[in-house]
């Protein structure tokens, strides 16, 4: 856990936008998993909103990665 915190701090310092979108995407995926596994019923619009938010953060993260690769490589 200590190592994970240390790594997170380093990642936050190296690429804060990337790290923030990564954490947001994983957090939303976690929420989706909990809701689906627990069997809670979301309204269709809420479920779509959640999926759209996940897709937004995942795609944004990948775009930021590609930008970082193309700038630094």
């Amino acid at each position, binding site marked *: 856990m200590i190592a994970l915190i240390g790594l997170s701090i380093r*990642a936050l310092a190296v690429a804060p936008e*990337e790290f923030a979108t990564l954490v947001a995407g994983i957090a939303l*995926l976690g929420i989706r998993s*909990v809701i689906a596994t627990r069997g809670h019923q979301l309204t269709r619009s809420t479920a779509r909103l959640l999926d759209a938010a996940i897709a937004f953060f995942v795609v944004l993260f990948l775009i930021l*990665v590609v930008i970082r*690769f193309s700038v630094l490589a």
Partner: protein
Amino acid sequence: MMPGSREAPWARRAFSILPLLLGLGGAVFWLVAVHEANYAAMNSFGLISVMTWPFYVAIALAVAGFLVELMGPIPRTSRLVTLIVLLIVIMFATAPAVEPVASLYDSWLHAGFIQYVIEHGRALNHFDARFSWPGAFSLGAVLSAFVGRANALGFLRWFPPFIELMYLAPVIVIARFSGVGHRAGWLGIALFFSCNWIYQDYFSPQALNYLFYLVIVATVLATWQPRPLELDEPAHPTLWHRWTLTRRSLSMLRLGGHEAESTRSSSATLVILLLLCLVLLASAMSHQLTPYATILALIAMLFGRRLGRPELVVVAGLFAVGWLSLGASDFWLGHLNAIFGSIGRFGGTITANVTGRITGNADHRLIVNARILEVVALYLLAFIGAVRRRTEARSLELLAASAFLLLALQDYGGEGLLRVVLFGLPFVTLLAASAFLPNRSGAIGPHWRFRISPQTGTVHRQGRWVARVLAGAVVLVFFTVTFAVRGGNDAFESFTTGELAASEYVYVHAKVGETIWMATPFMPTNFRNIDSMPVKIAAYQTAKTASTVDFDLFTLLSAHAHWIILSASQAAWGVQVGGYAKGWMAPFQATLLASGYRVVATWPTATVLHLGPLV
């Protein structure tokens, strides 16, 4: 012998303990074989060349014991596990028992990485690509400190049998929940350990991450089961009908994980998901390739109705790409082409992975060809198993095929195909077992089946016994061939105590700033001081297999190497793989001596040279 048959009770008891007696006999003969093996007599065929007849008796008895138990009226799990453990010991513990020190240069190098982490508390940047995924090395450092060692050298020698025994538990779970029958599952497990010649179980991040991979697949298969399919399968399904069924696998229902259901409570499923995420995170930080193989396996299980939570695939992808971008930037800065350069280049990757490996002298090429033939034979059997079996879901076939997509992503320095075989092995071996013992139940029918009329029941029973005897013969042949080809490189990949002593001598006497070289790869070295005294390899200063004796000599002389270690393993590599002339080492050493070097220490299998007098 069937239950209720009229044999005397003593005969039934004798038959009952026969598998254990055979196993015990196998263990005794193995101990004798290991005791008799003369490592010094090893020739270019490697480990098999020093094994005497008791070793083959041990293999025959152990395989026979396993098969008698497996094909008996009621196979008992405890006995099957015991006999599989014996097979694992024979296959993977023989080399450490016979060879004087741990084999493979890379395992010693990994110990050097771990020692750096122990001493500095962090990875060494810009040194080696592997250090950009330091999870396994950090774990090695923690374990070394935990057992009170100053380094990880104590772990190297017996690591292969240890990690193979660790693989047994997830492989049993995979077999149990894969949808194949009970006997086919155990036969598949035996084939898994009988066909693993790939030698990625040495002390390495790959060995640890393969355990992660197996645990993840086993957990998913044990947690989610496919919902029953309602198929209106005609008596003789056409290709069009099968294509229609296949297209159903691309439905949103399936991609959303709705065609698989968890066998656990919601709380237990959430805990399992959390644990899987932790293992995925550990894997993303500790190996370059395994996280992507895991993602492909998760996708295969999603398509195969064996994964109910598609989020897991996305999380695995985010961890892998996230670590590559944020944690492994030391590696990819300036080397982006090494990561993405081979994407989609199937032709070049196959060339690098197959034809590029068939090099060296005739003995070495024979071993490499035997490896390729064994893989082809195994995949052929798996294909027969896939078309013969009846099943609820085609997840095994998808898992076996998914590993091939790795080749489209990375040639992995010419080792991509090896990893494809490695990652597909648990599933391919279960399918190969289904060639002999196909499952008879399930919504999805076989593509091909024996049609036997009720009048030919006797023939059918005979056919079943023929299949069982054939299965036994296949395990025996695969086991023996695998043992031979697995240790086929040991003439240069295993080391003597003299070679280790030569390395130790140089580390004791070399001063910081002095350069240490060896002519060709393969020595037990680089296990300490990797930052201040890295040992370099002359033959690796050009493309692999492009080096020559003259090139190595030129490299050493132009580098003004302070120390040069020459050894029997290096000489064997030059002859077997490098294409150097037999006996090349003697004139090579004479040229170095004529160029100002002096022999400062010597052992029967190693010589240490120093530039100028030793002060």
